[in-house]
């Protein structure tokens, strides 16, 4: 089936169960369904590991490895006061990681199905970023009051540099939620577009029947195996970067630099 390549089709949000209340559309979309699937996977994974055995089995080791990883991350970046933010960072990390990985499942071999990545939409990643930015603001003003604004004045800045430094610091502070959301969203979306384009090269190349088309398809096939491995890495890396930046921003709010 040699057709036009349409890489953006995979990102359409379709209602699965239409539901309207008044003029509001609160249908269960495929995006919501995949987020619920991510939640279910996390739930099963955590439930299987919370046995609290003294000698842990394989599953419990996996869960303890994950929680220990995030615990270390928060300890290193925030310090002892960050202990109470571990659940928040852990929830962000696991949700993003599982949502990313579920979007890579090769479900398209079942006709009519295709995986959907909730994190490839700015509305989802934007909300996650607003949550972590809002928490930073709340914690900052809660603990330090208006002294929180001293975040905009780096320690030891000469007075004549202040008119230059303060606007830069304010802009870099306000741009944080956008950069946080944009990084995750674009990384996921570009990866999926790349996979779709090269997947279409394989299909169109083999379907054309000519030797050149066959060569293009074979090269694309080898390429997409590598890209698939790279995508797995990017999934984990973006989730880690989101958790890392969130804990760094929380550190700013708690300890002021």
């Amino acid at each position, binding site marked *: 089936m040699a057709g036009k390549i349409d890489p*953006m089709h995979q990102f359409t949000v379709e209602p699965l169960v239409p539901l309207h209340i008044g003029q509001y559309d609160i249908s269960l979309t495929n995006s919501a369904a995949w987020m619920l699937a991510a939640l279910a996977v996390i739930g099963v994974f955590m439930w299987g590991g919370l046995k609290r055995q003294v000698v842990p089995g394989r599953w419990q080791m996996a869960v303890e490895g994950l929680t220990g990883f995030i615990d270390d*991350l928060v300890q*290193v*970046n925030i310090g002892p006061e960050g202990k109470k933010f571990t659940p928040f960072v852990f929830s962000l990390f696991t949700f993003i990681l599982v949502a990313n990985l579920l979007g890579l499942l090769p479900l398209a071999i079942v006709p009519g199905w295709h995986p959907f990545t909730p994190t490839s939409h700015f509305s989802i990643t934007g909300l996650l970023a607003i949550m972590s930015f809002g928490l930073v603001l709340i914690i900052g003003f809660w603990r330090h009051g208006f002294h929180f604004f001293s975040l905009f004045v780096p320690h030891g800045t000469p007075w004549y540099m202040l008119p230059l430094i303060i606007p830069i610091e304010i802009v870099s502070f306000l741009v944080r939620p956008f*950069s946080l959301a*944009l*990084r995750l969203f*674009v*990384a996921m979306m*570009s990866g999926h577009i790349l996979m779709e384009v090269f997947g279409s090269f394989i299909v169109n190349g083999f379907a054309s029947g000519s030797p050149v088309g066959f060569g293009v398809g074979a090269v694309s096939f080898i390429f997409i195996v590598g890209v698939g491995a790279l995508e797995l890495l990017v999934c984990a*890396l973006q989730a*880690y*970067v989101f958790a*890392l*930046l969130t804990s*760094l921003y929380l550190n700013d709010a708690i300890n002021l630099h």
Partner: protein
Amino acid sequence: MDLQSAKMIGAGLAAIGTGAAAIGVGFVFGSFLQGALRNPAAADGQQGRLFLGFALAELLGLMAFTVALLILFVF
């Protein structure tokens, strides 16, 4: 030149920025390896900074990609 061709050329030019970000990411990891091979004992403690630098360098390339997509699909 009609609008459609100008859009395509503009999107292609915007995508050059992703290559610049690739150079930046290469610098980040290359410098990290240089430092890590000289002092492997200190390398593990700096991984947070490694990924922070990676994220900041990568963001600019992703922004170039976003601009290319905006030109192609929004305007």
